[in-house]
């Protein structure tokens, strides 16, 4: 089965991610377009001009840390674990590349693991190794369901052979996912998808929803209800049946 995005439009004000790319839009929605809808504080608050979120909307690339040989595997892996299957994508590949190229690591390294930068390279080699063994193609060339199966084994720490033998596979999963998720959910398009309002400064929140007549789900005037309130646990259960 092909990867699709999570069920249709459930954002605050229509998800940027869920719009079909068209010739007139190009691949990347412009920063200006995003700003006037979303980050009130960034645009109007004089204090947060330096918000690094702005640079996240710049046109990304080219890769500095990963090699051209590694790039297809990396892109296929990030697409698979984040279920991004068409443009416009949150440029997670470029964001992870920047983090590693600039050495902005997280401040700890497991004693039985190499440096995070080496872990990434080994994971990519390991994915290709497993794909070659099981599907007679590299990871990027595997079908969606094959990639899905390999990543599932990775998530359970069950991959062996090749580069995997140089890693603690469970910890390697945590290292690469930590980076991929922090980049993806630092991007304003992802905030839009999950209904997170972004930086609330200097504005703040007045309506906290505590005990009172307005109820727990009281909203600020600028907050909009989500497009759906389906329980994701039920939805995911149906997929897995």
């Amino acid at each position, binding site marked *: 089965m092909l990867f699709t995005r999570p069920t249709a439009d459930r954002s605050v004000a229509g998800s940027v991610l869920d719009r079909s790319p068209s010739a007139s839009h190009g691949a990347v929605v412009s920063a200006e377009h995003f700003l006037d809808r979303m980050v009130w504080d960034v645009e109007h608050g004089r204090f947060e001009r330096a918000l690094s979120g702005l640079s996240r909307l710049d046109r990304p690339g080219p890769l500095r840390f990963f090699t051209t040989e590694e790039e297809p595997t990396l892109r296929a892996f990030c697409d698979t674990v984040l279920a991004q299957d068409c443009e416009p994508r949150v440029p997670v590949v470029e964001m992870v590349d920047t983090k590693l190229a600039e050495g902005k690591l997280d401040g700890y390294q497991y004693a039985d693991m190499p440096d995070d930068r080496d872990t990434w390279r080994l994971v990519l080699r390991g994915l290709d190794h497993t794909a070659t063994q099981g599907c007679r193609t590299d990871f990027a060339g595997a079908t969606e369901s094959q990639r899905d199966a390999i990543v599932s084994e990775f998530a359970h720490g069950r991959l062996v052979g090749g580069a995997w033998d140089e890693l603690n596979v469970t910890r390697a999963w945590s290292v690469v996912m930590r980076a991929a998720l922090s980049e993806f959910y630092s991007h304003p398009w992802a905030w839009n998808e999950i209904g997170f309002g972004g930086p609330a400064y200097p504005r703040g929140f007045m309506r*906290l929803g505590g005990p009172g007549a307005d109820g727990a789900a009281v909203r600020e005037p600028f907050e909009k209800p989500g497009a759906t309130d389906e329980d994701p646990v039920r939805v995911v259960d149906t997929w897995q049946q």
Partner: protein
Amino acid sequence: MGTFWRGILKGSIGPRDNDSRFLLDVHSRDLPGEATMARYRDNDEVDLVIVGAGAGGSVLAQRLARHGWRVVIIEAGPFWHPDEDWVSDEAGSHPLYWTQKRIIGGADPIELGKNNSGRGVGGSMVHYAGYTPRFHPSDLSTYTDDGVGADWPIDYEDLRPHYEQVEAELPVAGQDWPWGYPHRYPFSPHPVSGAADKLREGALRCGIEMRVGPVGIVNGTFGNRPHCIYRGYCLQGCKVNAKASPYVTHLPDALAHGVEVRANCMALQVEIEQDSGRARGVVYATESDGAHRLQRAQYVAIAGYSIETPRLLLASSSPRFPHGLGNNADQVGRYVMVQGATQTAGRWPHELRMYKAPPPEISSEQFYETDPDRGFTRGFSVQTVSPLPIGWAEHVLADGHWGRALREYMRDYNHWATIGVLNELLAHPDNRITLADETDEYGQPVARMDYTLSDNDKANMAYSTKVITDILHAADAQDVLTIQRFAHLIGGARMGSSPEHSVVDANHRVWAVPNLFLADGSVCPTQGAANPALTIMALASRLAQRMASGAAMVDDVAARIGRTRSVAGSRR
């Protein structure tokens, strides 16, 4: 001031001998006084050089500067300019954390970095959540009472006046506190958010009492510090100046009284006069040119917290101290502790938007003390928390979701509320900081932290996870997601009554070096189930009082041993 009057007067009477709240600028978040700060030369022998401008070092500096001491603080990280440097953004807050490499090992390695380690002027309190509970009196005598951990060489009464003073300086907001040593807070509790209210309802149905606070967040105005705006970014640095950190509570007053904060300077070694065994000062490297300098001082205090303090002591080896300072009995780095911090989230049909209001809202210490019926020693506290998107994604990942399922769970973010625990994990000698083979850019060996949970720790964590899960079910949560994690650091150079079993004496003075003190959380022999920030500040406040009076420098054996609890002297 007695408890009664504190309850009546609340914040109307401010703290004495600390003008920080009036020195802050209403229109700028910068630390006032940076431009006019005292500057000492390296070969000036100042009265005190402190390593680390965090919770411990800043309070010590502010207090002693008020007594006329000439103080220099050496700080590895930057001197913040919050209006430009801090952002309301998780990923953009990366520079606030200690992200230089550390090695983590043992059976249960502890994640560091953003989780528990700060860097820069203000220390980790710049990005702590804001909870400021006190330790309970029982935390200071766990060995006598329960046969675990260690007894402290000081009593709760030694700390209590300093708790009260620091609570007035932060100031702490919260309901009257019934647990431990019952007390009141100078500021009234913050309003409860919709998410926290759900959790409180659930707790009440389980027979668990939760109270609002205690948090070091201004509720009202406090000098030139404004009311909290409830934007939810406490863990990314408070740009409002509502949340307390030494950057706003002690350093403004310290700078006004002649303290120099030398930022971007990494301490490498405490230099020892080989004949007398006294510390001459601190050797540090400046980030700009990498040059090594020695700041001379009459007294040296290290306040680098549970990893950097042992690292600096171990790295300061010399012919007189071949195994590192204070390490003659192989005690440095041992008994380092973290707290279990499992979080469980529940899903409701309403959009609760848990990030509105401070992440620390309400808490309970009902399970803090030992209860033999639970099957383990010591206890835990229950606290609400509110992860932002990246933190929430880690939560969903920990439940085993990735790809499409993860995106589907994530898009439902606004419907979830999170409750967590803090387990008191017991001190163990093999949980320790050592030096790794790898070195950093200055050639200094990086720290390695090994951690392994004991059976008591695991039983405590399992029991507490069930308690918070029950709370969510009682609150009619439709679904529950759990993540097992750890928080905080403490210990690593503990205080005690004998040089064989501790690094410092009852006055925080390193047993073998007459003018070297430790002024941070590394001295705590136990940690309770309370967030450590307030206790670290209170300990530094007490130490400052004793250094100013000279009591901390007395060589009398009884004074160094402090209070002993058991007749046989069997305590360790």
